């Protein structure tokens, strides 16, 4: 375990969002507002080829005609898309330089985030790509990965270095026309990670991207593309934080996963964007489109621990196109104070003998609202498709809400679909029982919540499970009693 009891205790005493610092780094920020010129300017700034600029412009034109969706069970003031700056970069970042040249203030920020980019003190077996505001700042372990033919780099570099791969796959899982935020992202995405695992290669380490919004008045629109070629395997993790700010910040990302025949992708997220303060002021709007496509005999597994953001709108999904492909979704979503989350998944069964599993754990405290929204779709040609869904909600106190919206569309009679749902409340009796055994209330809640979330926590890579467990405790502090 990376954390001692003492550290944990100290951590628990600080009630504030611990990643709420702002680092004063000189940055290069575009004027606010969005139009074709801004889209062109982003593309130019990135020194992109013509096809990419055109791709963005097409997305922008689609976005212009779209309306922001209203169907989610969340209430918030719609962002003014003309008052956001669509590009902000720490000025001194230059991805081509070595780590020694990185701005010391940036390094200090990574230290606060608990990430060591220093190769000497590297995270055990984790290659990290860090995206601050709009650009990717450092990618570690490039060389080790390159020996195996694995490409792991900022997407902006991939556009330059591997245009054939980007061109072939980008937008194939989440098309520009998919939804309002995906279209917006397609037009203005500034960075993100790109990953390609060649045929038959098992990626020897966890690949990780750390996202951070630093600059005020900016949005973050990153784009991640993971391609696992035939019979390959990769485990990918992303973490997210932002400084505490009074205003709402927008985060609209797109993640596309492509698992070719016999490949497996495990994608884990620990999302801890600033949730706003206890009165519901500020916080990140997290409107994310994540989707993966599975070819024959392949598998995509999404695991997410969502503790942050003021508003979350996110449905990591699997299109089970290939026969015998498998989709999994394991989720813990915690909402406290005035947070709102509408999250879940879509499992689209198209191939024969496809299987999907959905385990969703929602924990609501304070005055928050937590919704699970999921679709299980069985196509007409999907013989013998199977789905198992389990949605459990845990309530703390009397002012929060938990909602479940499961949708099922079965067009093939051989489908087997199971859905289980439970709602429970952390009872005073449970707390008293723990108290009586010498466990104080804060620790008792942590214990109960961890027990409730165990099935999902177990799916996370070990070192991140510890971090996630700690996050759960911090997010729920002071929520009972």
């Amino acid at each position, binding site marked *: 375990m990376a954390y001692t009891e003492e550290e944990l205790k100290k951590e628990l005493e600080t009630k504030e969002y611990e990643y709420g610092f702002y680092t004063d780094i000189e940055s290069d920020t575009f004027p606010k507002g969005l139009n074709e010129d801004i889209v062109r300017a982003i593309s130019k700034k990135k020194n992109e080829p013509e096809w990419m600029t055109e791709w963005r412009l097409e997305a922008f034109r689609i976005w212009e005609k779209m309306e922001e969706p209203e169907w989610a069970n969340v209430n918030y003031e719609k962002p003014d898309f003309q008052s956001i700056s669509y590009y902000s970069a720490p000025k001194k970042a230059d991805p081509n330089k070595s780590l020694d040249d990185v701005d010391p203030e940036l390094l200090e920020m990574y230290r606060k985030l608990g990430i060591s980019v220093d190769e000497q003190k590297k995270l055990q077996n984790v290659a990290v790509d860090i995206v601050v505001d709009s650009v990717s700042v450092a990618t570690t372990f490039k060389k080790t990965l390159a020996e195996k033919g694995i490409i792991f780099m900022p997407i902006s570099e991939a556009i330059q270095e591997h245009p054939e791969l980007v061109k072939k796959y980008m937008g194939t899982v989440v098309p520009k026309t998919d939804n309002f935020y995906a279209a917006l992202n397609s037009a203005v995405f500034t960075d993100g990670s790109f990953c390609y695992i060649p045929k038959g290669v098992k990626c020897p380490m966890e690949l990780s991207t750390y996202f951070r919004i630093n600059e005020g008045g900016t949005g973050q629109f990153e784009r991640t593309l993971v391609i696992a070629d035939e019979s390959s395997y990769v485990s990918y993790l992303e973490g997210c934080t932002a400084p505490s700010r009074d205003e709402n910040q927008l985060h609209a990302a797109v993640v596309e996963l492509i698992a070719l025949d016999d490949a497996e992708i495990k994608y884990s997220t620990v999302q801890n964007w600033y949730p706003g303060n206890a009165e519901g002021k500020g916080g990140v709007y997290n409107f994310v489109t994540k989707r993966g496509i599975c070819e024959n005999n392949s598998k995509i597994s999404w695991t997410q621990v969502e503790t942050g953001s003021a508003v979350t709108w996110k449905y990591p999904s699997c299109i089970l196109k290939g026969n015998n492909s498998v989709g999994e979704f394991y989720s813990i979503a915690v909402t406290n104070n005035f947070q709102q989350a509408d999250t879940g998944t879509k499992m689209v069964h198209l191939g024969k003998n496809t299987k999907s599993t959905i385990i969703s754990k929602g924990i609501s405290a304070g005055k928050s609202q937590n919704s699970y929204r999921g679709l299980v779709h069985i196509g007409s040609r999907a013989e013998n498709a199977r789905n198992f869904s389990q949605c459990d909600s845990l309530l703390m106190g009397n002012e929060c809400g938990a909602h479940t919206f499961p949708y099922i569309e079965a067009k093939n009679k051989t489908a087997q679909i199971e859905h289980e749902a439970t709602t429970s409340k952390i009872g005073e009796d449970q707390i008293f*029982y723990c108290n*009586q*055994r010498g466990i104080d209330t804060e620790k008792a809640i942590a214990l109960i919540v961890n027990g409730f979330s165990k099935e999902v926590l177990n799916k996370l890579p070990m070192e991140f499970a510890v971090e996630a467990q700690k996050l759960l405790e911090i997010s729920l502090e002071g929520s009972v009693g």
Partner: protein
Amino acid sequence: MLKINDLHASVEDKEILKGINLEVNAGEVHAIMGPNGSGKSTLASVIAGKEEFEVTKGNVVLDGEDLEDDAPEDRAHKGVFLSFQYPVEIPGVSVTNFMKTAINESRKAKGLEDMPANQMLKLIREKAEMLEIDRKFLSRSLNEGFSGGEKKRNEIFQMAMLEPKLAILDETDSGLDIDALRIVANGVNKLKSKDNAVIVITHYQRLLEYIVPDFVHVLHNGKIVKSGGKELALELEAKGYDWIKQEATV
């Protein structure tokens, strides 16, 4: 060890305990009997510090210290243990993990380091054996899907692990078949010493055949109306509670 002075307690303005006096010394076993609704479980909860109950008068003193300001966990750290009549379920938390947390929290309160894992495992093995508890049982979620008997046995297992100074067994016999009753009672007897004390709350004489009390108290309408030796339990078994009620109202 434990001294209860003129204890009055109410819940939602309804007075349930109406002046309890009780003294329990180290090495003693006290039985508290009485009809349903007489306040037996309330007394146990008040000693353990359940916040739902308001102490309106009197106090509970442990080793000369008034427990009034102590939270339930502080009382637990001081050696008060309550075997619950209805143990709660905590899904996903194994018996082992729960015990590990409880023991380390108590150690922390005393300024001690966490118990080393091998020592913890040894202790768990030893106590589980004493109570004839299957190893598989220990990795199950706390009380989830346990039978009535398993729940009670698990309570006594926790008591064995925590080695309290004062153990209160609230209707531990209910839901136990005769074999389980014997195992549980044997466990309690083995844990008894000259340094600790046990309060057994029960309806029936049955359990007291195995855990022999030094004193028997009859609780009725929030007061101890009769105290005596172990023979009092037999008398109650034979005659029921009606004569006590009548005696008390005279």
